[in-house]
C-alpha cells in the first residue's frame, strides 16, 4: 500500500518537524526573556549578573549628565529606596525627562553600573510605565514600615 506508506511518512515527518520547531521556539523564548527588576531588587543582588534584564523607576532629578562625547549620558533611576546609575549611548526618546518613569534594557557591568542598550519612555499619555508604577508601589510598601526612621529617599521629582 504505497499510498498509506506515503501518508504515514508525511505524518511522521510533519510530527518530527513540528517537534523540532517547538523545541527550538521554547529554547529561543527561554533565552530572550528579559525580566523586570526595580533598583532595590538590583542592589539586593536579585538581578542576574550575566544576562540582560530590564530596570525601571523614576529618573532622579538633576542626575542626567552628558558625557564629553555629547551622545553618551548617565542618569540615576530610583524606586525611592535605592538608586542605580545607568549609562546609555545614544539619543534619548522624546518622552524621557527627569522625574518621569523610564524602563531601560541592558546589563550590569562589574562596577554595578547598568549599561543600557535601549531606553524606553513610553509613547503614551500615561504618566509612567506600569512596571515602574508597580515597582515604586512595592518599594513604598516595603519601606513604609521604617518610614519614621531616617531613610528619606534621595528623591526629588521635578522635571
Amino acid at each position: 500500500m504505497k499510498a498509506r506508506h506515503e501518508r504515514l511518512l508525511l505524518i511522521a515527518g510533519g510530527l518530527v518537524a513540528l517537534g523540532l520547531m517547538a523545541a527550538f521556539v521554547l529554547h529561543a523564548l527561554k533565552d530572550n526573556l528579559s525580566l523586570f527588576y526595580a533598583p532595590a531588587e538590583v542592589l539586593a543582588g536579585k538581578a542576574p549578573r550575566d544576562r540582560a534584564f530590564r530596570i525601571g523607576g523614576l529618573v532622579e532629578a538633576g542626575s542626567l549628565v552628558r558625557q564629553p562625547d555629547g551622545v553618551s549620558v548617565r542618569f540615576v533611576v530610583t524606586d525611592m529606596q535605592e538608586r542605580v546609575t545607568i549609562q546609555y549611548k545614544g539619543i534619548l526618546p522624546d518622552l524621557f525627562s527627569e522625574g518621569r518613569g523610564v524602563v531601560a534594557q541592558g546589563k550590569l557591568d562589574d562596577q554595578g553600573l547598568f549599561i543600557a542598550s535601549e531606553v524606553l519612555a513610553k509613547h503614551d499619555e500615561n504618566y509612567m510605565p506600569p512596571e515602574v508604577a508597580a515597582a515604586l508601589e512595592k518599594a513604598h510598601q516595603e519601606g513604609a514600615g521604617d518610614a519614621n526612621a531616617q531613610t528619606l529617599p534621595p528623591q526629588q521629582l521635578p522635571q
Partner: protein
Amino acid sequence: MIPEFGHFALLLALPVAVLVGVLALVGAQKNHARWMALAKPGTRLLAFLVTLAYLCLTQAFVANDFSVLYVAQHSNSLLPLAYRIAGVWGGHEGSLLLWMLMLVWWAALVSVFSRPLAAPMLARVLGTLCLVAFGFLLFILLTSNPFTRLLPGVAEGRDLNPLLQDPGLILHPPLLYMGYVGFSVAYAFAVAALLAGQLDAAWARWSRPWTTMAWGFLTLGIALGSWWAYYELGWGGWWFWDPVENASFMPWLAGTALIHSLAVTEKRGSFKNWTVLLAISAFSLSLLGTFLVRSGVLTSVHAFAADPARGIFILAFLATVVGLSLVLFVWRAPKVGLGGRFGLFSRESLLLSNNVILVVATATVLLGTLYPLLIDALNLGKLSVGPPYFNAVFVPIMAPLLFLMGIGPFLRWKAASAQEIVLRLKWALVAALAIAVLLPMLIYGDAWPLVNLGIFLAAWILIAAVLHFSRQVWTTRGSSNLLTAVLRQPLHFWGMHLAHIGVAVFVAGVAIVGGYEEEKDVRMAPGEIVTLSGYEFRFMGVLPVKGPNYEALQGEVELWKNNRLIRRLRPEKRFYRSSAMPMTEAAIDTGFFGDLYVSLGEPLDRARPEGEWAVRVYSKPLVDWIWGGCFLMAFGGLLAVCDRRYRQSRRRSTPDPLTVKTSP
C-alpha cells in the same frame, strides 16, 4: 442636534442588526423564503444607518463641536481639516465606529456582489455578519459611545495626540481595519457553510476573492503602519514586535495560510475542515488583536487608553463569536469528507507545508505576545519577550517556506515528478546561489551568512517565478505574438507571481537593511561634518519655525557626496501647543537604493539651541524595498480578485449543481 441624530441612528441599527441576523439564519434553517429575503435589504439598511452615524460624528469633528466629549478629547480648532476628518478614528470610540462601518460595508458589498449565491447561503452569510455587527454595536453603545455630550461644552478641544498628526493616520487605520474586518466575510462564509453542512468547492470559490481582498488590505495596512513607525518614531526601525504590531501580524499570517488552503479546497476539494478552521481563526485573531489593543492587558509602546470594562466586553464578545463557531465546527467537521487524494510530492502537499509553517509562525507570535501575560497571571513576575526572540524564531521558520515558494507553482496537483522539478529548477538554484554569494561581496564588500541566506531566497523566488511565468507563456502562446501571450495570461496567475515577487523584494530589503545599515549618534556643532556610507552630512544649525498648531526647532543638514550637494534635509523637534509633548520629526532622503535618515536629539545646552546638538544619522540601504514588496503583494492580491473566473461565475445563470442543495 446632529450628534443626537448619529446616536439615534446607532440605536436604531441595533434592533435592525439583531432582527435581520436572527430572521435570516432561522429562515435559512427552516427554508422560509420570506425571512431569507429580508437579509439583503436588511443588511443594506444596517449599512445605511451606521454610515449615517459615522457621518454625524465626522460632522462634529469638522464643525469643532466641543460639546461632544469625544471631539473635545481628540480635536482642536487649530487642527488642520484633514486631521479633523481622520481624527474621527484617532481615539477608542471613533476607531470602534470605523471598525463597525467597515463591517457593515463589507456585508453590504457581499449583498451586492453575491447574486449567484443560493438564497439560503446568502441569508446565512449576511445573517452571521449582522449578528457580529449586533455584538459590536452593543459594545459601542454600552461602553464606548462616541456621541456622549460634554455639558457644559468647552471652548477648545484637547487636540489629537501629536504622534497621530501625520498622513500615516489618514491611511493606516482604515486600511488595517478593512483587512481585519474583511476576514469577517471569510468567517461568515465558513459559518454559513458549517450551518448548511455544505463545505464544497463552490463554497471555496465564493470565499476566495473576499478573503484575498481582505488579505490585500491587511497587507497594505500593516506595511503603512510599519512605514509610519519608521519615519515618525525617529528610531529608524521598521518593525518592533510590539504587542500591537503582533496583533495585526497574527491575522495576516493566518490569512496567508487561508488564501493558500482555499486554493486547494476549491481546486481539489481537500483540506475542507482545515480551511474552515483557518477562516474562523483568521477572524478570531482579528478579534483577539482588537482585544489586546483595546483592553490594555499588555503593555505596548502604542498610546491607547485602556479600560478594563471594555476589555471584559470584548473578551465576552470574542468568547461568544469564536466559541460558538468552534462548537459548530467541532459538531459539523467530522461529517465532512476528506476530499481528493494527493501524493507525497504534489502541489497539495506543498501547500499543506505552507499552511503548517504559517500556522506554526502564528503560534510562535501568539506565544511570544501572550507569554508575559501568562507569567503575570501565574504570579511569576513581570517580564517582556524582546525582539530577539521573534527574530531568532522567525528566520528558521520562514526560510523553508520561502524556499518552497519557488518550487510550488511548478508542481502539479495530485502527484508531481521530483525529477522534472530538478530538471526545471537546477539552473535557477545555481544562479540564486551564485547571486547570493557574489552580490553582497561585489556591492558591499563583505557578507555574512544571514545576508547570503536572505539574498539567496529572494533571488530564488524571483528566478523561479520568472521561469514559471515564461514557461506558461511559452506553452499557451500558440500562434500569437509574445506580447499578447504575456498579456493574455489570466489575472490570477499574474497576481500569484506578483505577490510572490513582492515577497522576494521584501526579503531582499530585510536582508540588506539588516546586514548593511549604519547609524551614528554624534554631537555636532553648526558647520561640522559626519561621514556615513560614503555620504557627508553637514550640520548647518537649527532655526525656530512655526507650524499650524506647533512650534518647532528645525535643523538643516546638507547631504554631500563626492563634493556635490545632493539635498538639504530638515529634521525637526516639535512642541505642540496643546500638549506638553515634544516630537521628533526625522528628515529622510528616500531613494531606490536606500534611505539616508537624520533625526535631532537634544541640544547639548538647553539654553543654547543655536549651538551643539546630539544628532542621529542612519544609512538604510534598500529599506524601501520592504514596503515596496508589501505593496506588490497587495497588488498581486488585487489582480487575483479581479480575475475573470470570479466574474464569470457570477454571470452564470444556472448555479453549480452543488450550490442549490440546501441543508443536509
